[in-house]
């Protein structure tokens, strides 16, 4: 049985290993909202918001709609962070970032400035949509050499 990869895990593990991202957030890349940080700590949150497999059968290629939250610090830090993450993800086309799965394509989508108003002082945050197409690590499609 071939399982579709966990796209959140792929993106999370990839971003945490990008030196330019590390320079801004260290290892603060998460898939659930972190509770232990101060409001000055910038971080990245990776969420899957939707997406369907390209074909229902065979179930070997998935297209995930992802939301990337880049929290500042300050607004400028949040913007640098989201721009860095978008650039890093845009370099993923057709490469295999880790054993979790193979990224076949990345479409970087809309960018919005949506401060998180649920903090006492609305916290600067940029949100980017990203569409990521993946297949299981090691899966070979018909016609591939």
């Amino acid at each position: 049985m071939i399982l579709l990869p966990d796209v959140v895990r792929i993106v999370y593990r990839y971003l945490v290993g990008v030196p330019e991202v590390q320079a801004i957030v260290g290892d603060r890349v998460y898939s659930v909202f972190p509770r232990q940080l101060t409001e000055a700590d910038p971080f990245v949150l990776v969420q899957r918001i939707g997406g369907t497999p390209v074909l229902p059968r065979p179930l070997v290629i998935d297209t995930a709609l992802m939301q990337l939250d880049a929290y500042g610090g300050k607004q400028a830090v949040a913007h640098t962070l989201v721009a860095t993450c978008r650039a890093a993800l845009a370099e993923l086309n057709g490469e295999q970032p880790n054993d979790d799965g193979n990224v076949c394509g990345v479409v970087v989508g809309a960018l919005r400035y949506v401060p998180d108003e649920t903090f006492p002082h609305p916290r600067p945050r940029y949100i980017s949509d990203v569409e990521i197409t993946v297949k299981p690590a090691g899966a070979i499609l018909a016609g591939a050499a």
Partner: protein
Amino acid sequence: MPVRFAATFGATETVERLARPGLRPAARAVAQAIPTRVPVHTGGVKRTYKPTLDEQDDSIHVHVGSPFWHWLEYGTQFNPAYRPVENAVRSLGLRYEARSA
């Protein structure tokens, strides 16, 4: 039988004119679908979703009606991004296009 193709000018306007009768039903369907995509805990947030239609010259705006819509749509520190508006549009087989803002 041979087929002959002839150029037709004003194709964009023609398509827009043909599609125009479907605009209002589509907008109404989106407005009806949005609240159904809002997650329910106590129902308080869902009740704030009261979509309305705002007809323009060549388009129809669907206003969500909730002051909290962006919390549900994009998430906060207390909840993930549920995207009820986006999911409502996609659930109807319509294409969702987001613009940077």
